[in-house]
């Protein structure tokens, strides 16, 4: 079973709007990463946030991390049709096992 959960499971927005998706986890982390997957292809790394960081930006992406609540959020600003994809948070479970949640399927309507 997955040890990280994203919500919502699915999100549909209009182009230009902001998209926010959340990730919760159960055990302590050193870092948390967000990945994107386009339509059944491989995952692409978006951003890494360390446990001692609270917020990180990369272009139109903003990631926050709240270790006290064991949660993270990914904000995509001014969304585009090309942002349509599934988004996963990932983290280490143990030393070498890297796990992902169930993902948020984002659809951006033109």
């Amino acid at each position, binding site marked *: 079973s997955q040890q990280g959960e994203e919500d919502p499971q699915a999100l549909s927005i209009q182009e230009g709007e902001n998209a926010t998706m959340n990730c919760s986890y159960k055990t302590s982390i050193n*870092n948390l*990463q967000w990945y994107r997957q386009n339509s059944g292809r*491989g*995952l692409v790394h978006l951003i890494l946030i360390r446990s001692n960081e609270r917020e990180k930006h990369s272009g139109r992406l903003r990631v926050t991390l709240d270790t006290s609540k064991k949660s993270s959020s990914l904000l995509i600003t001014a969304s585009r049709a090309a942002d349509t994809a599934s988004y996963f948070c990932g983290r280490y479970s143990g030393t070498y096992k890297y796990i992902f949640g169930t993902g948020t399927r984002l659809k951006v309507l033109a």
Partner: protein
Amino acid sequence: DAGVTQSPTHLIKTRGQQVTLRCSPKSGHDTVSWYQQALGQGPQFIFQYYEEEERQRGNFPDRFSGHQFPNYSSELNVNALLLGDSALYLCASSLYRASGANVLTFGAGSRLTVL
């Protein structure tokens, strides 16, 4: 700079058969992990290889086995295929860092259909 290469892209097998999937990691990477992704689900960790040894394994039966070669490439073997093994199999490579800040680079996957 080539990324992660997986082969074959698609394959169809019947129940009981065996399959071998191949992965060439990104140049400079020394660690390979394999994932199974069922339709609509997140990737599930199968195992990780480093220095030609299986370093950790997920909740998969012994029918799933792997190998890493001296050039860091890897194979995933699945024996006695079941219908439930139908999935996208993803290979991810990384450069081992003791800090744990290892970014995974994924291949495009091998789509296995078991009939």
